[in-house]
C-alpha cells in the first residue's frame, strides 16, 4: 500500500468574498478513517469548506496541508456535487472519463465500468445520453464516476438534497459501501436524519465557524453547544 495522503490539516484557514468572511478561521485535522458529516444550516459554509479541502477553492488566508504532493493528492480524491454534473456523452462514456484522463486504456476502463454500472443499477442505460437521465440516476452515475478511480477521500456536498426518498436510500447505500471499503468520507448535509445514519464524526458548522466536533453518537445524544442543541431540536438558527 502506498503511503496515505491523510491526515489533512487546516491551519487558520479562512475564505473571504469581498469584505465578507464566509468561512473561518478554521483549525481542524481530518483523521485517516471514518465518515465525517459536516452539519449546519444553509449558508453556514459547508460547501465552501468542502471545496476548500478538495482544492476547488483557494483559501484567502491560512494553509491546507496534505501528507503528499499536489499531484498525488489531486489524483486520489473525488467530489460529488449537490447538482450532479454530467457530460454530454453516453452514461458509459461519462463513467470511464476519469480513467481516460488518467491514461488508462479504453478497454480496461470499460471492463472496470461494467462492474460499476451494475453496482449503481445503470447497466441498462449505458448507451443512453447521460443528460436524459433523471436526477437520481444522474447522481448515481456521479457516485460511480467518483468511486471508479478508487479515491482515498470522497467529498459529498449534500448529494441527496434534490432527490426523493428511494434515490436517497441508494445514494446512502453507496456511501456506506464506500465507507466499508475504507474510503474516507467527508459529507456536507443539513439533513439531521442522514447525518445520524452515516456519521462517525460530526463537525457542526455555523456562520462559517466550527462550533463543535464530536463523535457521531456523542453529538446526537449530548451536544455541547447551545447552537447545536437548538439545531438538533429543529429550531431555525439565524
Amino acid at each position: 500500500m502506498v503511503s496515505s495522503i491523510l491526515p489533512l490539516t487546516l491551519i487558520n484557514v479562512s475564505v473571504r468574498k469581498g469584505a465578507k468572511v464566509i468561512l473561518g478561521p478554521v483549525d481542524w485535522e481530518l483523521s485517516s478513517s471514518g465518515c465525517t458529516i459536516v452539519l449546519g444550516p444553509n449558508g453556514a459554509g459547508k460547501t465552501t469548506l468542502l471545496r476548500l479541502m478538495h482544492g476547488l477553492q483557494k483559501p484567502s488566508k491560512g494553509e491546507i496541508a496534505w501528507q503528499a504532493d499536489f499531484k498525488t493528492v489531486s489524483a486520489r480524491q473525488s467530489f460529488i456535487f449537490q447538482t450532479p454534473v454530467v457530460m454530454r456523452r453516453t452514461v458509459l462514456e461519462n463513467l470511464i472519463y476519469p480513467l481516460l484522463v488518467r491514461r488508462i486504456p479504453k478497454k480496461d476502463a470499460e471492463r472496470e465500468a461494467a462492474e460499476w454500472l451494475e453496482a449503481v443499477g445503470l447497466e441498462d442505460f449505458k448507451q443512453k445520453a447521460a443528460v436524459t437521465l433523471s436526477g437520481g440516476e444522474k447522481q448515481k452515475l456521479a457516485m460511480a464516476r467518483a468511486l471508479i478511480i478508487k479515491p482515498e477521500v470522497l467529498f459529498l456536498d449534500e448529494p441527496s438534497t434534490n432527490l426523493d426518498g428511494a434515490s436517497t436510500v441508494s445514494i446512502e447505500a453507496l456511501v456506506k459501501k464506500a465507507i466499508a471499503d475504507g474510503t474516507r468520507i467527508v459529507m456536507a448535509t443539513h439533513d439531521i436524519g442522514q447525518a445520524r445514519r452515516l456519521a462517525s464524526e460530526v463537525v457542526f458548522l455555523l456562520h462559517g465557524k466550527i462550533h463543535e466536533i464530536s463523535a457521531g453518537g456523542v453529538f446526537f445524544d449530548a451536544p455541547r453547544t447551545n447552537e447545536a442543541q437548538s439545531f438538533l431540536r429543529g429550531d431555525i438558527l439565524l
Partner: protein
Amino acid sequence: MNDLFAGFVEAAHLVLTLDNDLVEISLRSLQVSVIAVFIASLIGLPLGALLAVARFRYRRTVIALLNSLMGLPPVVVGLVVYLLLSRAGPFGVLDLLFTPTAMIIAQVIIVTPIIASFSHQALRDLWYLYHDLLISIHTSKAQRMKALLWDGRRALLTATLTGFGRAIGEVGAIMIVGGNIDHLTRVLTTAIALEVGKGQFSLALGLGIVLITIAVVINLAVHSLSKTERGGVW
C-alpha cells in the same frame, strides 16, 4: 418582375442542361470555400476552446478583438492579401496572386474570426457547466479543451456552417486576389458580379439562385447527417 422570372428560367435552364461553365465555376466555388473553412476550423475551433478554458491577462482584449474581426471588410482583406502576394510584396516569389490558393488565403482570414468567436461563445457556456467537474477530476488544459470540443460538437458545427455561408457568398476579397479569370479563378459570386456589370441580369440571377441552392443543400446535408447520430437532445 420580368427579370426575376427570366432569372428563374435561366437558372432552370443552366441546371437542367448541366452547363459546362456552370458546373466548373460551381465546383471551384465549393473547392475554395470548403478548403478555406476547413483550414479556418483547424485554427478557429481550438482557439475558441482555449479562450473558453484559459485565463490569461489579455483574454478579454483578445475576445473583443476577435469579435471585431468578424466584421472585417472583405475588400480590405483582399487588398492586403493582394499587396502581400503581388510581385513587389513580401510573398511575391511564391507566385500565388490570381490563383485559387490566394482566394483560399483571403477567405481563411475572413472566416477564422467568425468560427473562433462563435465557437468561443458556445464553449464558454459548456465550460460553465463543466468547470467544477473537470477541475475536480484534475484534467490538464489540453484534456479540458478536448472534452469541450467533443461534447460541444453540435454547436461547433453551426459555427463552422456560419463560416461556410460567409465564405461561399463572399465576393469582394476573392475578386481582388483571384481576378475572376475564366477557367482559373472564376467562382459563382465573381461571375454574378461580372454578368451584372454586363447587364445580363437574367444570367446573373440564374447563377445567384444556383449559389443559394448550393448553400442550402450543404447546410441541410450537414445537419441531417449530424442529427441522425444520436437523439435530438444535444
